[in-house]
């Protein structure tokens, strides 16, 4: 039972480079989410997806791009990384649209932008 996985777990990159963070879930959950976690801010939603080919912006989407061609994958791309995007990124999934359903989180990707 793999659950929800993220890769890479750690990434160091330079300003201006493109970076893609991968998220994969094995439950066929409809909803998937990307959050960033920063000290003093808790978790903030970047993008979410309700199903394959359906995505929408969250609270802090600028500088990020997502796609969802398959239900199980939800990659997050930083098109031109900036130092302010240094953070810990968490992917999450939820079975359906009900708001009382549990969100399941991946282990996170620590990204450092130099």
């Amino acid at each position: 039972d793999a659950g929800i996985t993220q890769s890479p777990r750690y990434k160091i990159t330079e300003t201006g480079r493109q970076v893609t963070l991968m998220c994969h879930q094995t439950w066929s959950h409809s909803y998937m989410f990307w959050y960033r976690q920063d000290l003093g801010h808790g978790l903030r939603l970047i993008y979410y997806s309700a199903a394959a080919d359906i995505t929408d912006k969250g609270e802090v989407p600028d500088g990020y791009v997502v796609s969802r061609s398959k239900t199980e994958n939800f990659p997050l791309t930083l098109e031109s990384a900036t130092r302010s995007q240094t953070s810990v990124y968490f992917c999450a999934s939820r079975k359906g649209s009900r708001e009382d359903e549990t969100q399941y989180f991946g282990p996170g990707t620590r990204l450092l932008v130099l």
Partner: protein
Amino acid sequence: AQSVTQLDSQVPVFEEAPVELRCNYSSSVSVYLFWYVQYPNQGLQLLLKYLSGSTLVESINGFEAEFNKSQTSFHLRKPSVHISDTAEYFCAVIVPSGGYQKVTFGTGTKLQVIP
């Protein structure tokens, strides 16, 4: 829009002592409330949630939280903490609407259990 406040960024407590982690929310309508726990280098895990009904909710590892509508609070308590409870705890709120509504997280409280 709803918001969540966790006033304590860090809470040190001795092993076997009781602990309370505070959470206050602001919303003019009914909400769902959650507590998540994050162990070092891991993702968040749901600890417990309040949706409706009994205002006291419990987790399987001895934590409990009480929904207090008049004080707009959802404080997390444990009567006797263990070293393994050392983690960061996040309070979260959703305003249910029948459609998608985002989860608003608090800034987290780091619980440090001292042997």
